[in-house]
């Protein structure tokens, strides 16, 4: 009986952290962010060699077949380094294929994902919220409509698309009738596109699991929450370090109580949130009856904590915090986008209310 990371998980965090430290410096993050694809293929390949791309891919399909808590440890590290790699879509697709894919779909896609080759973007946002007339209808084996904010879209070889009737289709990138238009958010370390589908042929349906869309979204929420934790933790660490160096009034600013208290408040928000996240990851694999509820809570809560931490960490830096040159802004933006992805905190909490029967019919 034990609530915490195992020795292996701590080692995983350390190994991946060390690798990313070297492979993806903030300068490199900026370079990739300025590129068209916004995808660091080299770092992703290296991470794949460490097993990270296939962390949720079963061993028989070339992955290392670990659990969601391991994925969360990895996601935190990717967030901590603001890594422009498709870990989110890789995790979501691994879960979707492993649970709902046919044998052939698994054989085709899972090893690719695990190797860090071009994988699957994920377009399921319409299932959470519909705007701008988004929606996907399926007629015979063809899809019609549009999806906003397809995740990790630039480097993907195909897409998982959720239809309005909550089925999940596989579509290849070069399918006729599919147009992919980039959406430029504040965070260029993650790429999104709007998909327009005009009678796009379906490569196949993922039919092996009831409620697959919800499962996919739960997985995405947990991984995003971990990414936000990592990004906020980094912004916080930057702030504490800066407060220990910068001098004003002949003292380091970290000796001013106003500054110390901001830092204490950030720590007091981050640490319990981390504990909640660990449980959400554990529940995803081991406590199915609680998994959706705690995934929603973890996502919403990390969104709130993340917003507070990245803005406060920026403030601690003073004027430099507002500049492009300061790394804090990278994390500010990473959290800013993750916050609304797969549901704003309000939407996600509403879902938590529905799950508990708290919403009137």
């Amino acid at each position, binding site marked *: 009986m034990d*609530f915490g990371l195992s020795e292996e998980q701590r080692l995983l965090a350390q190994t991946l952290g060390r690798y990313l430290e070297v492979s993806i410096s903030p300068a490199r993050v900026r370079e990739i962010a300025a590129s068209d694809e916004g995808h660091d293929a080299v770092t992703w390949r290296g991470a794949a060699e460490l097993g990270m791309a296939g962390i949720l891919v079963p061993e028989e399909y070339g992955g290392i077949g670990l659990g969601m808590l391991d994925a969360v440890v990895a996601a935190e590290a990717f967030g901590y380094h603001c890594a422009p790699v498709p870990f989110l879509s890789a995790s979501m697709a691994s879960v979707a294929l492993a649970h709902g894919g046919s044998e052939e779909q698994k054989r085709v896609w899972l090893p690719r994902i695990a190797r860090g080759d071009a994988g699957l973007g994920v377009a399921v946002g319409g299932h959470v919220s519909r705007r701008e007339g988004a929606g996907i209808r399926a007629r015979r084996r063809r899809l019609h409509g549009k999806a906003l904010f397809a995740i990790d879209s630039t480097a993907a070889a195909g897409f998982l698309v959720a239809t309005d009737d909550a089925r999940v289709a596989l579509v290849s990138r070069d399918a006729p009738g599919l147009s992919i238009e980039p959406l430029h958010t504040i965070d260029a370390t993650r790429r999104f596109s709007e998909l327009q589908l005009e009678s796009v042929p379906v490569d196949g349906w993922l039919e092996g699991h009831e409620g697959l869309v919800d499962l996919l979204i739960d997985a995405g929420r947990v991984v995003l929450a971990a990414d936000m934790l990592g990004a906020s933790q980094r912004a916080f660490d930057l702030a504490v370090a800066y407060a220990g160096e910068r001098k004003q009034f002949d003292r380091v600013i970290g000796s001013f*109580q106003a500054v*110390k*208290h901001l830092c*204490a408040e950030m720590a007091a928000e981050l640490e*319990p949130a981390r*504990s909640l996240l660990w449980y959400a990851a554990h529940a995803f694999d081991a406590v199915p009856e609680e998994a959706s509820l705690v995934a929603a*809570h973890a996502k919403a*809560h990390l969104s709130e904590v993340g917003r507070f931490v990245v803005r406060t960490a920026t403030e601690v830096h003073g004027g430099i915090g507002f500049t492009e040159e300061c790394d804090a802004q990278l994390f500010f933006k990473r959290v800013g986008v993750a916050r609304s992805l797969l549901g704003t905190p309000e939407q996600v909490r509403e879902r938590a*209310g529905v799950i508990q029967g708290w919403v009137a019919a």
Partner: protein
Amino acid sequence: MDLSYGPEYEAFRQEVRKFLAEHAELARGGGMGMGMGPPSDRAREWQQLLIERGYAARTIPREYGGYGGEPDLLKRVILDEEFARAGASPGVRGQGPDMLVPTLLEHGTEEQKRTWIGPTIRGEVVWCQGYSEPGSGSDLASLQTRAREEGADFLIDGQKIWTSSAHFADMMFCLVRTEPDAPKHAGISYVLIPMDTSGIEVSPLRTMTGGAEFNQVFLSGVRVPQANVVGRRGEGWKIANTTLKHERNMLGSSGQLEASLQRLVRLMERETEDGVRAIDNPIYRDRLLQLQARVLAARYHSMRLLTCNLRGDSAGVAGLVVKLTGCELSHQIAALALDVMGELGSLYRGSRHLRDGGAWQFQHMFSLGLIIGGGTAQIQKNIISERGLGMPREPKPKTELG
């Protein structure tokens, strides 16, 4: 992470649930709030049952009157859950069982442990904490209460203030200055004082709740054997900090938060405005859900800290945040309860429209007291940033030469 839940635990949960159902009446009557009064006979009867079962004083060794069980994280969690679900009192709590007892286990002599732990956990001996003085609150180490040596005894003179429960306590653990010439942190001793010793005068202070949960305590020529010092003479600051650590954990305890949240949910399912239940109002519901996330976070955080403890790992800064976050959360839960009741929330006593006996107004005020007591929120932030994050201490002002 291993929260596997074998049949042994399912059986334990069933056993607890059955026990609580069988003793439903006693379970509800057995409560006691800090400073509210000594445990009633029923509360002590309840506590006795809980200790026999290992539902209270679970890990305290048998020779000191506890149950003598191994620490078990999952059983702890099951107990919290089931007690919250049943609305059952967790038994006798407070400064004696939750603060002094763990301090004695760590620093007390064998004799002190044997004398005090059993009666304290059974609720037979009630303790108060004599730390704060009129001039020494946050700056506790500046305390002035003096203890002069006289033979085998100390003679104590001074004044304590904000002493919760002193008006009905049997004993006080008290900080006194024994070495007036030593630097301020090095001159303090931690003594156990019977409250019926002559020279002690207790004068209750009325608080904003309308009750009088705390007091002024005047000490003049109070004679206490030197054997009543815990730890070594002059090392009271270290012992005091052990107690303060347990106080922070007690005040931030997640079990209370879960029970409080569940009461809030029940209130919101009951309370209606224009026929619409509070929980069906999306604004109130969203606030409830935000609090629920925090209560869940507190719960898993306490499991994480317990695990660190059992593994012998340091929790680092994660261990220092519970008092700050827990007390604030308790206050926010009460604040939402008041808001969903609208004007009715302002009623306090003696009305047929009153809800839950005015408990929410009480919690709203009392939790604010707890945000201040046990080291204020600001002092907690100093502790988190200085001890937890290693940030520089406030520079000491140069003492003026006079």
